[in-house]
């Protein structure tokens, strides 16, 4: 295999961005997915960075955090966080990216407490902007490591809402729109059925359906047309490696 799982995940995430869309770019791998999308099929996509930056072009250098100085140079707007969140709350953001420590079959994410929140086994960092992106973006893309302890039947704490308990849950609790459209993992890509339950849509070329199932903590549904995830193209790999030459995020 001449690419890393992270490179495949970045390429897969980039393909979820359509040309002309407004993208709420999250920390880590999404920083690079936005660059790949911009330089391939989505040249007019616009990126929102919650620290207060809007970009119409990729940043000139690799970002470790979204507030690194290269992200401000050549920005299309430098502003305040609630304005960008407010635009998202008003429906202007097509797609948002977040990661998670724990996800369940309805795409709810936990980045706050493992165990009971009153006496947690592990205190995770918390929401950041993730709860807002999951609440307010038109669609949500989740990027995370595929491990059995992370893919659980039901999360311990909902930091960022997916489809809740499934069905009409989002409307019932008052969320204005949205919900997860895919979970891009180190092993495959999960999508959601009409009841809001995740199923395996594709598995990465270096794994199998059985291996994905073995690493999932619930009885994972599998699409009838499940297939290998297309590997990153030469062009995608070139862009990723030019942007992250030392592989800080992608190796």
């Amino acid at each position, binding site marked *: 295999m001449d690419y890393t799982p992270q490179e495949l995940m970045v390429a897969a995430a980039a393909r979820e961005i359509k040309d002309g869309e407004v993208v709420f770019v999250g*920390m880590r791998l999404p920083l690079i997915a936005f660059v790949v999308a911009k330089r391939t099929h989505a040249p007019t996509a616009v990126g929102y*960075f*919650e*620290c*207060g*930056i809007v970009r119409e072009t990729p940043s000139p250098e690799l970002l*470790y*955090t*979204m*507030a*690194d*100085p290269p*992200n*401000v*140079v050549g920005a299309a707007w*430098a*502003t*305040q*966080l*609630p304005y960008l*969140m407010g635009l998202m*709350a008003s429906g202007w953001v097509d797609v948002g990216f977040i990661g998670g420590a724990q996800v369940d079959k309805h795409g709810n994410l936990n980045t*706050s*407490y493992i165990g009971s*929140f009153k006496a*947690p*086994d*592990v*205190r*995770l*960092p*918390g*929401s*950041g*902007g*993730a*709860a*807002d992106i999951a*609440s*307010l973006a038109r669609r949500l893309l989740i990027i995370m490591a595929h491990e059995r302890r992370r893919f659980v039947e039901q999360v311990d*704490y*909902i*930091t*960022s*809402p997916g489809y*809740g308990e499934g069905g009409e*849950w*989002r409307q019932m*609790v*008052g*969320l*204005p729109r949205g919900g997860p459209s895919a979970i891009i993992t180190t092993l495959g890509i999960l999508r959601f059925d009409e009841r809001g339950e995740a199923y395996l849509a594709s598995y990465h070329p270096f794994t199998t359906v059985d291996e994905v199932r073995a690493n999932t903590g619930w009885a994972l549904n599998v699409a009838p047309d499940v297939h290998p995830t297309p590997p990153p193209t030469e062009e995608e790999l070139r862009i990723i490696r030019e942007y992250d030459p030392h592989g800080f995020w992608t190796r």
Partner: protein
Amino acid sequence: MNKRMTLREAVEQFVPDGASVALGLCLESLIPFAAGHELIRQGRRHLTLIGPISDMLFDQLIGAGCVDCVMAAWVGNVSAGLAHCFRRAVEQGLPHPIEVRDHSNFTMSLALLAAALGAPFIPTRTVLGTDLPNTNPDLIESTNPLTEAGEPIILVRAVQPDVAILHVQRADEEGHAHMWGNLGISVEAALAAKAVIVVAEEVVERDVLLSDPNRIIVPAHKVVAVVEEPGGAHPSPVQGYYGRDHDVYHEYHRRTRTPEGFQAWLEEWVLGVPDRTAYLARLGAERWQRLQRRRSAPSVPVDYGY
């Protein structure tokens, strides 16, 4: 009025034990590390920390025992991972238990904006259906009185910090301050707070600030102290001055896995240095030089004339 003083004086005078302090408001840039370290050196106790995400600084203040309560969206280390002191405080009560009020970035900004507007709360549809209201009494589940069906809505209670500490690029001695780049929730926090401490890379003439009033962050009459502290945001970046020192975050992450490791780190970089000048000397001239602005990207001046 000349409000210029040292960081030691500003912290002594305006951040008492028990204060609520907003800091780290631009997210990963312009974090007032020098001010945070001064809080630790002066042994402040029972603080409430207010911020959006906190990249490492809240962890240091928690580990040093300064903190009773955290109101924030995220406490960690953005490029390296989890925050070990924050974990120890919540999971094991070390060095003592802390209260955490879990916000999202948007709700934190709305809590400060509400205070900035003199409003008791701001309604929003973010975080509906999440567990955040279960771990934050400042997020109140209610219904929208403007709809017949009474749709669910979250009321974000106003949060008014006693003091907001802003690291800025430049200020004058009266407290006019220019900040540029991503602003995060700096404006909301400065407007909400009862008092503002400005820590500047450079203190310059009043005329420089007033030549570009759109870039001034908050009315100067809210500012109680102005401190000139070059390098005061290191290892976080300051647009136009210096870049992020990524290695510090990774080293901190590695060294603070144990309480003993944290204590050794604290001795080396906070308790064992009297001030920021000594901190930068310990960092070394060569390393500090490497982080300095490599190429200029000035904006074209605007003409306010008439």
